[in-house]
C-alpha cells in the first residue's frame, strides 16, 4: 500500500498545460520534496494533492483510496503555507483548534490534543496571543501546530521557510527535520531551495515544465542526475557540462572536444546502452567539487588548463578554467594560490563523471 499515489495526472489553466501526466508514489513515513524553478507546477501539484485545485485528468490516491473528488477536509491531510495563513482575528489557541472544532471533535479530545501539541512545539506560553503579536518563527510554529493537532496521514508544506530570514530558516529547517524523525508522518514538501530539498528529503522529485525530471534519493540526484536539467539545477556552482564527442580507440573510450587535443578517458562508466558510442555527441559532466588541485585518488586524471578567473568567497574560491573555449569551474580551498593566465595542472575525479546525450540531453 502506498500512502500517496498519483496516476497520469494532468492539469491545465486554460490553454497552459501546468502538469503533464505526472506519476508519483510515496511510501509510508517518507519525506518527499518537490523541487523546481518557479512556474514548474510544483505548487499546483501540492494544491491538487490537498484538493484545493481540480484535476483535468488522472487520479490521486491516499492509502489506495481514490480521493480525486473528495473535499480537502476529508482527505486526512494538513497543510502549512508560505504566508502561514494564520487566521488574524483568532488567537493561537483558536487558530490551532479551528479544524478540530469544525470536525465536531469532543471538548476533552480537543483540549488533550492542544496541550500535547503546544507543549511539543513550545507554543504553550503563546496560546492567548494574536498572530500579529508573534515573531516569524513563532508564527511558523503555530502554523505547524495547527497542522499537527489534526493528526493527519500526510503533511503538505508549501515553501514554509521562504518568508523567514536566512538564520531562522536554517533553524526551522532543522526543526522540521527533527519533527519528521520523531513523528514519522509522510510529508510532501514544496520548495525551490536545493539546500532545503537535499537536507530534508528522503526523496526528491525535480520538476520542470510540468514534468517530473527525476524522482530519487538526494544522493542519486546529486551523483547520477538523469538529464542535463537536473545536473544543472542541483549544486552550486552547478555541474560543468563540456560539449564534445566520444571516440572509440582500440577498445578504450575517450572524450574529446573537436579542434582540441585534450582527451579524457572514460573508464568503468555505467552506460545504459553500450552500443553506438563512437562519434556520439555528448556533454561531459563533472562537478566543480570533483576537480582537484592535486592528486587525491590513484585514478584521478591529470589535465592542463588555463586559469582565467578567481572568485574568492571566504572558505573557498571558485576558479574558472578554459577547456577548448568552454568554461570549466572548480572549487578549491581559498588557501591555494593559482596564477591567472597560466596553464595549471588539474585532476578530474573520473568516477564522478556523468555523460549526457547532446541531442536528447538525457543521461547515457
Amino acid at each position, binding site marked *: 500500500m502506498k500512502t500517496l499515489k498519483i496516476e497520469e495526472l494532468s492539469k491545465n489553466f486554460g490553454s497552459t498545460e501546468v502538469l503533464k501526466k505526472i506519476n508519483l508514489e510515496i511510501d509510508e513515513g517518507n519525506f518527499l520534496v518537490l523541487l523546481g524553478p518557479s512556474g514548474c507546477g510544483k505548487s499546483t501539484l501540492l*494544491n491538487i494533492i*490537498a*484538493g*484545493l485545485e481540480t484535476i483535468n485528468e488522472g487520479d490521486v490516491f491516499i492509502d489506495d483510496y481514490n480521493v480525486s473528488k473528495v*473535499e*480537502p*477536509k476529508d482527505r486526512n*491531510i*494538513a*497543510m502549512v*503555507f*508560505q*504566508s*502561514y*495563513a*494564520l*487566521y*488574524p*482575528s483568532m488567537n493561537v489557541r483558536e487558530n490551532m483548534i*479551528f*479544524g478540530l472544532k*469544525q*470536525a465536531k471533535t469532543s471538548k476533552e479530545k480537543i483540549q488533550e490534543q492542544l496541550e500535547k501539541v503546544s507543549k511539543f512545539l513550545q507554543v504553550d506560553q503563546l496560546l492567548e496571543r*494574536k*498572530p*500579529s503579536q508573534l515573531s516569524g518563527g513563532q508564527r511558523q510554529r503555530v502554523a505547524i501546530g*495547527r497542522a499537527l493537532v489534526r493528526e493527519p496521514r500526510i503533511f503538505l508544506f508549501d515553501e514554509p521557510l521562504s518568508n523567514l530570514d536566512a538564520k531562522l530558516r536554517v533553524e526551522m529547517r532543522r526543526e522540521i527535520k527533527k519533527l519528521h524523525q520523531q513523528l514519522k508522518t509522510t510529508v510532501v514538501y514544496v520548495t525551490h531551495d536545493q539546500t532545503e530539498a537535499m537536507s530534508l528529503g528522503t526523496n526528491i522529485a525535480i520538476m520542470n515544465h510540468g514534468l517530473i525530471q527525476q524522482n530519487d534519493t538526494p544522493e542519486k540526484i546529486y551523483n547520477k542526475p538523469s538529464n542535463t536539467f537536473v545536473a544543472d539545477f542541483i549544486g552550486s556552482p552547478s555541474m560543468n557540462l563540456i560539449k564534445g564527442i566520444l571516440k572509440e580507440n582500440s577498445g578504450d573510450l575517450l572524450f574529446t572536444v573537436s579542434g582540441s587535443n585534450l582527451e579524457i578517458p572514460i573508464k568503468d562508466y555505467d552506460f545504459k546502452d553500450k552500443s553506438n558510442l563512437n562519434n556520439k555527441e555528448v556533454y561531459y559532466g563533472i562537478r566543480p567539487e570533483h576537480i582537484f588541485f592535486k592528486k587525491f585518488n590513484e585514478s584521478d586524471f591529470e589535465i592542463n588548463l588555463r586559469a582565467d578567473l578567481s572568485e574568492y568567497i571566504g572558505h573557498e574560491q571558485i576558479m574558472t578554467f578554459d577547456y577548448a573555449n568552454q568554461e570549466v569551474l572548480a572549487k578549491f580551498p581559498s588557501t591555494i594560490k593559482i596564477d591567472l593566465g597560466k596553464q595549471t595542472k588539474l585532476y578530474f575525479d573520473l568516477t564522478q563523471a556523468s555523460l549526457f546525450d547532446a541531442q536528447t540531453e538525457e543521461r547515457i
Partner: protein
Amino acid sequence: MQDSLKSSSYQQLEQKSKYTNMFLRWFLYFILILFASYFIFPLYVMVVTSLKTMEEIRQGTLLSWPSGLNLESWAVAWGGRGYGAGDTFLRPYFWNSIKMVVPAVFFSTFIGAMTGYVLTKWRFKGDQWVFLFLLFGCFIPFQAILLPMARTLGVLGISNSVVGLVLVHTVYGIPFTTLFFRNYYISVPTELVKAARIDGAGFFKIFFKILLPISAPIIVVTVIWQFTQIWNDFLFGSTFSFGEAAPIQVALNNMVLSSTSVKEYNVDMASAIIAGIPTLIVYVLAGKYFIRGLTSGAVKG
C-alpha cells in the same frame, strides 16, 4: 582675524534665516485661518440665524449675535406649530429617513461584502466581466435609472413607500460597496481561505469567521460612504415617494420652498441643520473606529 569675520557673517545668516522662518510661519497661519473661516462662516450664519427670532433677523445683520438661546425655531422645525393642515415639520420624515437609511446601508454593505468575497476568493470563469459590469454601475447617472426603476417599483407594488426606497438605494449602492470590498479582500492572502477549507470550513463559515472579523476598516468606510449618499439623496426620494413616505431631504425642500406666508429664516436654518446632523454624527463616531481599524494592524496575517 579671518575667523572672527567668518563667525560674524554666520551669525548674520542665522539671524536672517530666523526672520524668514518666522515670517513664513505667520504667513502660513494667516492663510490657514483665512481658509478655515471661509468654511466655518456659513455654519456660523446658520447656527446664529436659527437661534434668532424673526424680529431680530429683520433688524440685525447676518453676523450679529442672537439676544439669547432662543430654541423656538428648532422646536417648530422638529415638531411643528401644532395647528392642523399645511403645517410641515421634520419629525415624521426624519424617522422615514432613518427607516430607509439603516436597512439600505446594512443590505448594500452586506451584499457588497459577499460579492467582493466571491469575486476575490471563489474565482470563477468570467468573474472579471461580472466585476467590470458592476463597476459600470458606478458610472450610471441617477437620472438614467429613474424611469426603469419607477416601473420596477410599480410592478413590485412598493412605489411610494420606504421599502421601495430601501430597494432603490440598496441596488444603486451595490457597485460601490462591491468595489470597496473587492479591493480590500484582494489584499487578504488567499492562503487563508485554503487553510480554512482544509480545516473544514465552508463558504459561509469562511466569510463570517475568517474574513468578516478582519473587515472592520472597510466596513466603516463603506458605511460612511453609503450613509452619506443615502441620507443626502434628494432625487430618488423626490421621484419615488411623496407625502407621508418622503425622506427628510424632500420634506426639507417642501418646508423651505413651499411656504406660502413670510419666509421664516430661523426655522429654515434649524431644519437644514437637523437634516445634516446624522451624517455628522456618523463621521465623528465611525471616523474614530476607522482610524483605530487602520492602526491596529490586525489585518496582516
